[in-house]
């Protein structure tokens, strides 16, 4: 259509009539940003009157910035320290608002002032600069290569292989030495990841002639009776009794991080114990490791109706009635199960988890 248009336009221009109001097409920019997104007024001869006005506006912003900083300092010295300084959330919030607000005011006002200054008052003109070639010409490269080789020759490095090779030999272990130094960063894994404090605690209890170690509630450390946990559908986090006392002080958190266990009361008729673990539950009360087998978040949510244990990190879902089998999500293994029994009315664990808890690892098998 445009070809035709051009022809008509060329041949019969004089007699054409223009219909409607022509839009100022000449000024219609196709592109939002030409190359003039730089200072609008800059580079031109400044009109002194409007420059004066701009200067006053800039000055106003600078004064505002001044006021902001002064207010900041004044608040800090004069007001934030009243009644003995900061204490608690309210005063922290208040101080945060005032200090942050005045600081922001000061920076932003100054930024605005500078921006207007650049746009309205700077008289610099855009300039053009040549780009230069980075690379040296082939000749200089060749000369350099020659010099380099000459140096190597002068040093004897190229002519004396024995020197060269022994030097390399000497350097190689030197690079390794720092790595060796890092050895004491931590112990070797050994069998550490294969057991939890439940094992030690059960052993200790058995030495004392008991069936197993009592489960205590995480937080209160109260031993748990079967009757305390009789309501179907409940879930609670438990630890082996005595974990805080039996473990060196700085190891407590680490041992707790491995031993945390969830205790769930699932309806006994729905419960399908795994083979060989028929007597690991007590009337439908089962215990699983709380550490998700995906990457180790606490699998802390339990849905009563579906009997699903849910890990909030990446939503791995385990079936509490079916040996904590994975029903959904990225975890590949069931949560390890803790063998339970009753002793004097108290829930006890009769052994450690039969397999390593938590995320899989190469040596796990």
């Amino acid at each position, binding site marked *: 259509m445009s070809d035709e*248009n*051009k022809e*008509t336009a060329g041949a*019969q221009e004089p007699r054409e009539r223009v*219909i409607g109001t*022509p839009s100022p*097409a*000449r000024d*219609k*920019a*196709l592109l939002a*940003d*030409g*190359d003039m997104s*730089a*200072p609008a007024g800059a*580079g031109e001869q400044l009109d002194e009157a409007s420059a004066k006005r701009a200067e006053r506006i800039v000055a106003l912003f600078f004064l505002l910035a001044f006021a902001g900083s002064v207010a900041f300092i004044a608040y800090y010295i004069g007001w934030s320290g009243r009644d003995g300084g900061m204490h*608690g*959330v309210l005063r922290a919030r208040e*101080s*945060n608002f005032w200090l*942050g*607000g005045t600081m*922001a005011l000061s*920076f932003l006002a*100054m*930024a605005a002032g*500078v921006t207007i200054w*650049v746009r309205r008052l700077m008289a*610099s003109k*855009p300039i*053009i600069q*040549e*780009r230069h070639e*980075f690379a040296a010409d082939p000749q200089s490269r060749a000369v350099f290569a020659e010099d380099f080789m000459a140096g190597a020759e002068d040093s004897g490095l190229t002519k004396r292989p024995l020197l060269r090779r022994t030097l390399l030999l000497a350097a190689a272990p030197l690079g390794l030495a720092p790595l060796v130094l890092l050895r004491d*960063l931590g112990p*070797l*894994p050994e069998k*550490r*990841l294969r057991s939890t404090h439940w094992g030690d605690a059960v052993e200790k209890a058995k030495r004392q002639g008991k069936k197993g170690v009592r489960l205590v509630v995480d937080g209160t450390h109260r031993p748990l009776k079967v009757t305390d946990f009789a309501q179907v559908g409940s879930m609670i986090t438990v630890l082996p009794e005595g974990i805080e006392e039996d473990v060196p002080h*700085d190891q407590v958190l*680490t041992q707790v*991080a491995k031993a*945390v266990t969830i205790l769930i009361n699932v309806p006994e008729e729905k419960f399908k114990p795994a083979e060989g673990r028929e007597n690991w539950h007590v009337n439908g009360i089962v215990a699983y490791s709380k550490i998700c087998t*995906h*990457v*180790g*978040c606490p699998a802390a949510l339990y849905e009563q109706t579906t009997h699903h244990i849910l890990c*909030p*990190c990446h939503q791995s879902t385990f079936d509490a009635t079916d040996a904590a089998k994975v029903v*959904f*999500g*990225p*975890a*590949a293994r069931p949560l390890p199960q803790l063998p339970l029994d009753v002793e004097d009315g108290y829930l006890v664990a009769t052994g450690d988890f039969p397999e390593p808890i938590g*995320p*899989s*690892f*190469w040596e796990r*098998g």
Partner: protein
Amino acid sequence: MSESTAPKAVEAPLNFLDDRLGSTTFFKRNMKKVFPDHWSFMLGEIALYSFIILLLTGTFLTLWFKPSMVEVVYDGSYTKLQGVKMSEAYASTLHISFDVRGGLLMRQIHHWAAILFMASILAHMLRVFFTGAYRKPRELNWLIGIGMFTMGMLEGLFGYSLPDDLLSGTGLRITQGVAESIPLVGTYIYMFLFGGEFPGTDIVPRMYMLHILLIPGLILGLITAHMMIMWHQKHTAMPTQHQTEQQVYGYPFYPVFMAKTGAYFLFTFGVLALLGAFAQINPIWLFGPYDPGAISSASQPDWYMGVLEGSLRIMPNWEITAWGHTLSLNVLIPALLPLGIVFGGAAAWPFIEQWVTGDKRHHHVNTRPRNAPVRTATGMAAVTFYGLLWIAGANDVVADRFSVSLFATTWFFRFAVFLGPVLAFIVTKRICLGLQRKDADVIGHGVESGIILMSPEGRFTERHEPAREEERVVLLSKENARPEAPAVDARGVPAPGAKGPLGHLRSRLNRAWQFDDVPVEEHAENGHAELEGDKETARH
């Protein structure tokens, strides 16, 4: 311009330096350095200034922060946690928040600055990618940029973990799980990182050293190299009237750019102060100290970790156990592959492109994204891939918002991460080609003027007028597809790039790169002589 001499207060130190260093030559040469102007060029500056703000606020925090996991009983001014056992790290962070004036502000600015730092680096990288600014001779700075983003992720992860609150402990636990999944050496890395089993007592002091010394030092080194290379090579420029491969056009460093960039710094700091003052971030006192048995169900990492989170979530639970060993593909793949593809791919891209196009020239004038459709489409595919994984990191929120099951969202994302990028590629390429056609049209036939003409026969046509010179230059900046050099040259010697199976692949990719290119050019015969208006020829 002005004949005046500098005041003594300026001249004296300058002379002092010059006498000893000969610095005047350097200053003279660089004072008027030209900075081309485009809004997108400030993204890198924002990243730089965020980093400076991180250094300043971070240094403030170190004055009170205690990187120690020794257990203490809190007795500070936050009443709700009084008497609670916690690590010294957590207690000192509470102290900074509630007992140090301006401490909460600095913590919040620090955290917001970390988020802005990463976001502006990413935005900056995208602009560099889509305009082709990474091309020779600027590949090194492209690689440095990728290095900085990766280190920023680590730096952020460690910083987030320092306060030892419930969320940061959860992040560390995931780090532990990921470390364990590494074949062969996983458990060793785990033990060596934590100084024993999780959490132990070494990890916070170690991360502290990494967070305030080693990684910032490395980033600072990279930034310095980045800036020096940029300064030496000069900026690229968007294709406009005065920008060519031989020259840059713009305002001089002193005084214009200096003032402008100063204003950006102030803006960045101002906005971060505003956020720090009015937008609460990481209120660690609400989460409580780390407790290995507890978790907050709404835990979300900082945004730049979202991709890892999303990949971990949607990965099927594959695990291989054989010969007494376990390979956790369900952790290993999402932890390494997606970011490996995106950042490894990004690092290799300039060299791949060079190999495919055979274009070994220097480029100082950028390409408009539409004029490199395959590049732009690949970039959009990567953005889609990254974006989908990122959203998948909040699939529970998505499920909740749109009232679909978690199960459904997970499966949706499992497919979408593969199909989405392909779709994005196709659509983007279409759009680019459409825009090229439009450009070709404007150059060939001018722009619609809005003036309707009625011919004597009564036909209506719209008058087309040539585009303005500035616009024509931009449109004509497109480099049209060049016919590929024949596989065998005149003397029968095969072109070096077309030999063997690799050469074959190269020529096929080369064809794919440009086969549907729409040439944007002036037609010499029916050129715009017959169009109205100024008849300057565009400079090229």
